[in-house]
């Protein structure tokens, strides 16, 4: 029963979508009951190839609808509309410790989706598919403007939504790896927020002087955003992941200049020397580097560096003083930061201070540290270099792929709703229903 089928039709709708949009993968005109493999292939900017696949059986009309039919096995199983993206992993034989991150967000991520006869698990490169299509996934919606920012010594990029504005603003911070990471800010701008991605660890200033930036750097970023004629100066929020959380909480609570309408903290902690500079906070973590553990695969676990959560108030950002809504996103299997323990302590501190009505915690079992926009492939571990440690380490982030991917999808929706409510004046948003 292995006679080659012809005229099997494969379609993906939409063929050009935003990174957080769902698509429908449809196979038609197959032989009823035939076994087929649907596979996704992507070559990332570093040149590495990533693949995902599912095994399906065509129904009596010769159709497979990935959004409704179960994958029997593969890199994902069950009914998984977006499994072909979130379960992408490096093809066999690839270098270990890879993580997929797009640097150039002005071009789309291109994924080739193909359907093969039979239930294939390997050797796809040597097989001829029955059909194949190319799908584009974009971080930037049409009309979103990308504006490099160097004013005031900043190393940043501003993404403006299309239209006259004014738009609420967003400061976007990543973690200890540094660099100017633009993709989340680009995607947030595609949802109507004027978003500025900021490099605060490896900025031009730091690379040239060897000195870390001070608190004023963030305040400058805030001012530049606030003063932009297309930004609504009284509606600015901050979003940070990992070490970016530390900066976000610091600014939200202690800055005289920065007045946030909302803050989103992903996979981070409030543990930090209060009133410490960026350098001092980094130093505080480094001091505890001895608490690093290694698992049986020699992957570094850094979550203990900040444990136990101190009782000394000078070592924790005083969340009781927060005056804006705070959304915490926590992966319960975070092996890199003690996000869950920190969230519990934050909750207690805010309850004692009487401002816990500002707090929302999203806590995901079996999700790891890198809670990224939806359908980003999960990296349980990857090679990592912080700005403090000069050599690359294999870092354990944590998380189980299925639960982690669900967490990314759920958290993103809730982050968008949270930002919409607090920055746009929240009515029940309908426009996220397709995500």
């Amino acid at each position, binding site marked *: 029963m292995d006679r080659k089928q012809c005229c099997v039709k494969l379609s993906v709708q939409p063929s050009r979508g935003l990174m957080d949009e769902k698509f429908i993968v449809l196979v038609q005109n197959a032989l009823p009951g035939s076994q087929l493999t649907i596979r996704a292939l992507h070559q990332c900017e570093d040149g590495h190839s990533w693949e995902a696949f599912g095994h399906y059986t065509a129904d009596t009309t010769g159709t497979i609808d990935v959004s409704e039919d179960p994958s029997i096995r593969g890199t994902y199983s069950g009914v998984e509309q977006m499994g072909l993206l979130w379960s992408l992993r490096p093809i066999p034989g690839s270098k270990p410790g890879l993580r997929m991150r797009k640097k150039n967000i002005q071009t789309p991520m291109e994924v*080739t989706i193909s359907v093969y006869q039979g239930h294939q698990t390997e050797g796809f490169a040597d097989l001829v598919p029955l059909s194949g299509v190319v799908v584009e996934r974009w971080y930037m919606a049409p009309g979103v403007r990308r504006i490099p920012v160097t004013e005031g010594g900043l190393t940043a990029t501003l993404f403006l939504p299309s239209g006259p504005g004014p738009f*609420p603003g967003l400061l976007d911070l990543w973690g200890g790896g540094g660099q100017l990471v633009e993709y989340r800010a680009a995607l947030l701008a595609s949802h109507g927020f004027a978003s500025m991605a900021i490099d605060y660890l490896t900025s031009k200033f730091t690379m040239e002087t060897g000195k870390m930036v001070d608190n004023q750097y963030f305040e400058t970023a805030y001012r530049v955003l606030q003063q932009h004629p297309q930004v609504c*100066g009284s509606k600015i929020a901050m979003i940070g992941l990992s070490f970016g959380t530390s900066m976000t909480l610091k600014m939200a609570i202690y800055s005289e200049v920065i007045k946030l309408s909302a803050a989103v903290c992903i996979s981070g902690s409030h543990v930090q020397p209060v009133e410490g500079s960026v350098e001092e906070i980094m130093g505080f973590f480094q001091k505890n580097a001895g608490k690093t553990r290694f698992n049986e695969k020699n992957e570094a676990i850094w979550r203990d560096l900040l444990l136990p959560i101190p009782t000394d108030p000078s070592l924790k950002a005083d969340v009781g003083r927060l005056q804006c809504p705070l959304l915490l996103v926590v992966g319960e299997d975070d092996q890199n930061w003690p996000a869950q323990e920190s969230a519990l302590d934050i909750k207690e501190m805010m309850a004692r201070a009487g401002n816990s009505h500002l707090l929302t915690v999203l806590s995901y079992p079996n999700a790891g540290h890198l809670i990224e926009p939806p359908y980003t492939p999960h990296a349980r571990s990857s090679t990592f270099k912080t700005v403090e440690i000069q050599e690359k380490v294999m870092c354990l982030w944590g998380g189980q792929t299925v639960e982690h991917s669900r967490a990314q999808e759920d958290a993103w929706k809730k982050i968008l709703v949270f930002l919409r409510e607090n920055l746009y004046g929240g009515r029940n948003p309908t426009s996220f229903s397709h995500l």
Partner: protein
Amino acid sequence: MSVLRCFSFSRGALWCVTRPHLQECTPTSRRLLSAMTQVVPPILSVTPCRALVDEKFKVLVENLPPGCPVTVRSLHHSEDKDDWEAYGHYVSDHSGVVSVSEDLSYGGTYTGKEPMGLLWSMRPVPGSRPGLRLRKMNVCTPMLVTISVHSGHEGFRDQAPLASVLTERWYMAPGIRRININEQGVQGTLFIPPGPGPFPGLLDMWGGGGGLLESRAALLASHGYVSLALDYLGFDQESENLEFKYFETAFNIIKDHPQVMPDRVGIFGLSLGSLVAVTLAAYSTIVKPCCIVCISCNHYYPARGSTVTSKFEGVTRQLSKARVNEDNQVIWKDVALEFITDPSNIAEVGRINCPTLLVNGCDDQNWPTVETAEDVARLMREAGKEHLLSRLAYPDTGHLIEPPFSPHFRATTFVMRSSKEKVILLWGGQTKPHSDAQEDSWRKILSFLQFHLYCGPNLKAKI
């Protein structure tokens, strides 16, 4: 201090949005204005923001005050540098939402519940040159449409929009290859879908306006057909017994392509292009199309042996007698009707041996396509070929039946090939029924092609 524009909604002015003239802002005043701008505007979204031209979108406005009158408008700056627009007047519901897919437009270039009205009801903005037609010549880039929301209904254009988004409408799906064809004397553009194939093929031809229009072929490739957009007017050379040589060569270029299934090549023609389709299907001994689609069918074939181009030039010379209406628009239909009443001037469509789909508009003012379709049906019936024929005839629909959501053109400028004279040709049709016809016919054409070129009887026999 720069001038502030302040406008409020005409009902329950709870909202006041200030918008500075950006060019007049000094850095100081800009800071002041930014600080003053306390309220954020409505949220406009178009989903999907990038789509094929025949795909639907959802336009949604949120965060408006309840019961607020707004106008949703589309604007497109064409390759010819004209501006095209459409707009609908709406009122937000109690939750401050306007959904173009769900709500009624109370007026504008379209009324009623019309999810795609912002595209199909587009027409040149007031003050444009007359007789314009919208055609995308470069199909490698998308058609860019700006969708915006404005305060109020009357005079909505007097103020800056409250919000706007850009949406892309593509003729080419990702991964499609576009290849210039200039071989064996044939001129055209070949579009090949992504994937290994093999694919069915289509020979695609437009009408007597000439030139090379790639839009439909690119779109057909996006639906899985290797499609050749053929430039033929003026290229087919006079040659006894070789009247079809140009077209047969073109057909074989498709058929012989390594990624094409040789027994699954069809022909798709509009207007004069449909004449090529029926005559190839009826007379050619070299090529056997698997099926043919004829939009606004023409079967006027006065003399065998001469080329399609020369026939067309002959026809247009005779059409100089055509009636001109009070708007100075030229109507060819009535004169052409006289031509086709003589049976010796008609292609012998009874000789067609493949499935044939005829699509025409009942208000076609350019060619007597209603009578033509009737005639074709009669001749095929008499030849025992009725089972091969399908017909779609649409009321109040004109001659130029294009892919869905293309604007309707009731009359446009046309350059006469021989004399180079510019006239305004009346194509016919009323915008709403014509647009409905475009949407309905495209779906049915795709289904017809899918059935005959993808699913065909051969495949079923193998099972």
